[in-house]
């Protein structure tokens, strides 16, 4: 038998180990995302084969103009399944990356846009806009078109991030209990606001509103998806650029400053970008809980806390998991549909409890 002699790993070896592992994780998440996207397009009331998908793309790109594909199949792929899959992937990526950024921003692994009311703040702003702003809406809509709703939700999310940070910040140190409690309070207030507005809403508005409380990818049309998608892509690209300064920020604000990081600017960018992504995601598909909490944790378990892997990994895994959650929501009670938030919370709630238990044991250890 061949026994490896005991040897200390040099930092160089360790760096390569981590890098290799990080890249493997990213690759695995990307494969999962591709699989999720394929299944999302193929599965449903009307079965679509991989051949149909290839044919549709080929004819769109002009490679095979006379490919044989039924008009129905093609319509389902192009007008129903694709926009829904794109929306799901982007929303999952936004929530996953935002969760990772927020956990770094608050220097605490329990921060999550859904948990501390950032999603709810965005949803409240969007709902208020729909119900109260009927007159206002037509003028703003004329100005911003279908960008209006995502932008309003973004402002709601931004206000929530700002309030929670102000409450939890004590001389540059974030008091975690205050952050979580302020988040719970903000969440409760926003949900109650949404409830009150639902009460005021008329029947046509009501159908729109039910979506905000539990989240769904239903009703994804290109017209609704594209404006929000643009905002989410901007948010995602911005967040990925923050990985190094976010790493330094984990050392504490003073230490990060001493390393040359412009702490105030990084915090401002982090707040703006998460609010942008979460707001845009919420505007189109409501409050989807726990994705932002669970996904970065799963990635971190394998790669370690380095944001250069956690951020892209959370975006990819968030996108993949969202697509699988949507598949469960669509297929489990077909032809009806479960709200997406029901599926993610059913998985995420127990995971959250597990996290708390694990931390409890860790703190008890000497």
């Amino acid at each position: 038998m061949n026994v490896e002699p005991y040897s200390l790993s040099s930092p160089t070896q360790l760096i390569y180990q981590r890098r290799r592992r990080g890249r493997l994780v990213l690759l695995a998440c990307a494969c999962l995302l591709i699989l999720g996207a394929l299944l999302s397009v193929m599965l449903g009331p009307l079965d679509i084969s991989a051949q149909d998908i290839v044919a549709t793309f080929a004819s769109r790109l002009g490679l095979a103009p006379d490919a044989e594909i039924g008009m129905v199949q093609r319509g389902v792929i192009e007008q129903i399944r694709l926009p829904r899959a794109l929306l799901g992937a982007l929303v999952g990526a936004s929530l996953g990356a935002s969760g990772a950024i927020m956990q770094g921003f608050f220097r605490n692994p329990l921060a999550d846009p859904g948990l501390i009311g950032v999603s709810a703040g965005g949803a409240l702003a969007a709902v208020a806009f729909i119900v109260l702003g009927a007159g206002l809406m037509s003028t703003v809509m004329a100005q911003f078109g279908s960008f209006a709703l995502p932008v309003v939700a973004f402002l709601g999310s931004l206000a929530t991030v700002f309030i929670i940070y102000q409450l939890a910040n004590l001389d540059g140190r974030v008091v975690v209990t205050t952050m979580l409690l302020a988040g719970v309070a903000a969440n409760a207030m926003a949900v109650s606001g949404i409830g009150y507005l639902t009460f005021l809403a008329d029947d046509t508005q009501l159908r729109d509103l039910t979506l905000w409380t539990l989240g769904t990818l239903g009703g994804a049309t290109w017209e609704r998806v594209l404006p929000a998608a643009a905002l989410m892509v901007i948010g995602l690209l911005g967040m990925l650029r923050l990985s190094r300064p976010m790493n330094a920020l984990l050392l504490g604000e003073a230490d990060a400053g001493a390393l040359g990081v412009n702490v105030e600017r990084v915090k401002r960018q982090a707040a703006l970008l998460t609010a942008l992504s979460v707001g845009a995601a919420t505007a189109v598909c409501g409050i989807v809980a726990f994705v932002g909490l669970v996904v970065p944790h799963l990635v971190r378990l394998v790669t370690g806390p380095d944001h250069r892997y956690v951020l892209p990994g959370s975006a990819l895994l968030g996108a993949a998991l969202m697509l699988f959650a949507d598949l469960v929501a669509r297929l489990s009670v077909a032809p009806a549909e479960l709200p997406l938030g029901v599926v993610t919370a059913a998985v995420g709630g127990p995971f959250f409890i597990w996290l708390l238990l694990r931390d409890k044991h860790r703190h008890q250890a000497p």
Partner: protein
Amino acid sequence: MTVELERASVIRGRRPILNSADLICQPGELTVLMGPNGAGKSTALQVLAGVTGCDSGRCLFHGQAIARLSRAELARRRGVVAQTSQLAFPFQVHEVISMGRTPHYGYPRAQNDESVMNAVMERMDIFELASRNYLTLSGGERQRVNIARVLAQLFDHPPTEVPWLFLDEPTAALDLKHQIELMKLLEQLAAKGWGLVVVLHDLRLVRDHADKVVLFRNGSVIGAGSKSQWLTPEMIQSTFGLEEPYDLGLAD
């Protein structure tokens, strides 16, 4: 090539925690800031390092107002070891140390990352901790990792530059052996021309290693100069508010 405070004041609330302090630190020597708790030592250190700005007066780094130097530029020329670290994520030790290289990212010195990391880990005796989770380390081990991280920032400085190191009670959590080794290292760095400013409480370490002492009381500098001039039994008694004179045995 000095770092100076000119009538620097820092006010928190309505209370001045640093009150019109004047101070000159020379490279090539170990300057020790001393005084009772809350006397303004740590604040002075932070202002000297450019981490905290002053409300009036100014800090000059090699003749330039430190507030006008870019953060990144400053980070390549001086390092700061704070009293406590707030890291709460399970990084491995080598990852923590690699963060010291952050200011060099995208600059030529980034090529040295790995050799510098090896050198500082050897120096701080943490080579065998390289793959450990930072959160599972003892206080003293964490302190050595933090010092190594800051050393990694400066270890490959160009020969034309004077690197500055600011340390706030770096020996507090260390065992005797590592206290002695750290002080030896600081002396060696001073001999190589580094500028070193250290807050220390242990009077015996000050007696054995300081080149220059600065005494603080109630936010003011009450004396700065040689050990034999300022560390007399009576001076220590009045600075720290002791009931009796405290003899360090410096008088010869």
